[in-house]
């Protein structure tokens, strides 16, 4: 009994060490989205290209990535070629042009290719607010019913896509074809 009490400090040390060790690999800028497994918020906004209004119905039906981007966002420029590559493999990508100038967005899409099936213009950031966006780029993964299944904050690079997002997207596609 006496001997066991001597081990208490060691046990406390180990517990603290485990917590601190875990803390080393947590990314504090990554917040869990409050919207996981919730429906994508409704919206009525103009498209970036063409004179039309888009709404939630336009992005439902197929699993897709919804990418929040802007021309003022420097990391979006880094991400853009990767999105182009992903789009080439047949993945559905929708864009939300967040708090941006439409003319600049159109120029950007012309210059760097357009990986988006559809681009929603959100100049005031209202859709962004409903989505809990706090910086670009952010990417949501939605299923065919328009339910948000995953959120990724930051630049999607090849390894992020290959290791994290592609398997999730594939799972959603498989879900749709039983």
């Amino acid at each position: 009994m006496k001997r066991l009490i001597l081990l208490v400090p060691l046990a406390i040390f180990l517990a603290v060490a485990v917590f601190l060790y875990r803390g080393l690999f947590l990314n504090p800028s990554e917040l869990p989205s409050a919207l996981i497994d919730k429906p994508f918020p409704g919206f009525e906004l103009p498209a970036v290209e063409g004179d039309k209004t888009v709404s939630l119905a336009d992005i439902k039906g197929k699993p897709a990535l919804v990418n929040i981007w802007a021309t003022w966002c420097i990391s979006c420029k880094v991400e853009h070629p990767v999105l182009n590559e992903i789009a080439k493999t047949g993945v559905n990508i929708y864009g939300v042009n967040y708090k941006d100038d439409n003319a600049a967005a159109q120029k950007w899409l012309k210059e760097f290719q357009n990986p988006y099936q559809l681009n929603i213009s959100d100049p005031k950031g209202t859709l962004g607010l409903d989505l809990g966006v706090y910086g670009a780029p952010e990417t949501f993964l939605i299923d065919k019913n328009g339910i948000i299944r995953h959120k990724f904050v930051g630049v999607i690079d090849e390894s992020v896509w290959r290791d994290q997002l592609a398997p999730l997207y594939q799972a959603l596609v498989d879900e749709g074809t039983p």
Partner: protein
Amino acid sequence: MKRLLAACVIGLSLIGVANAAIDTYVFKTDAERMRYRTLTEELRCPKCQNQNIADSDAPIAMDLRAEIYRMMEEGKDNQQIIDYLVARYGNFVLYNPPVTARTMLLWYGPGGLLICGFIVLAVILIRRRKKAAAPIGLLADEQQRLDALLTQAPLDKKD
């Protein structure tokens, strides 16, 4: 020296003032202004995580301040505004998080540790008292043996 100290104190007290972001919102009453202030100071900026949205200059904090002002103008109460933001950004935005299974340790951990400390202290004190209560000196048979030894000693002495 005293002057220098006074200057430092005044300078430090100004830091808080200088940090606060400047917005020009017009409020109907002073009570509303105070409500806006407490709300924005209680909510955390999702982008610049160690600042509240009152202090932050991040674009998202500006948007959230505008949104809070808009909701206040619409006559929403504090709980409605907080619920609105939590629905979008999660409990993360609260500097005063609710008690849930996940925050249990945060809320009750320190109290639990304090109680543990008191228990350990009590055990130590009780033990010490027990030790103190034990008779100091020798028991009856030990005393007898000692006396016997003492009286025998000279006999055993060899010159």
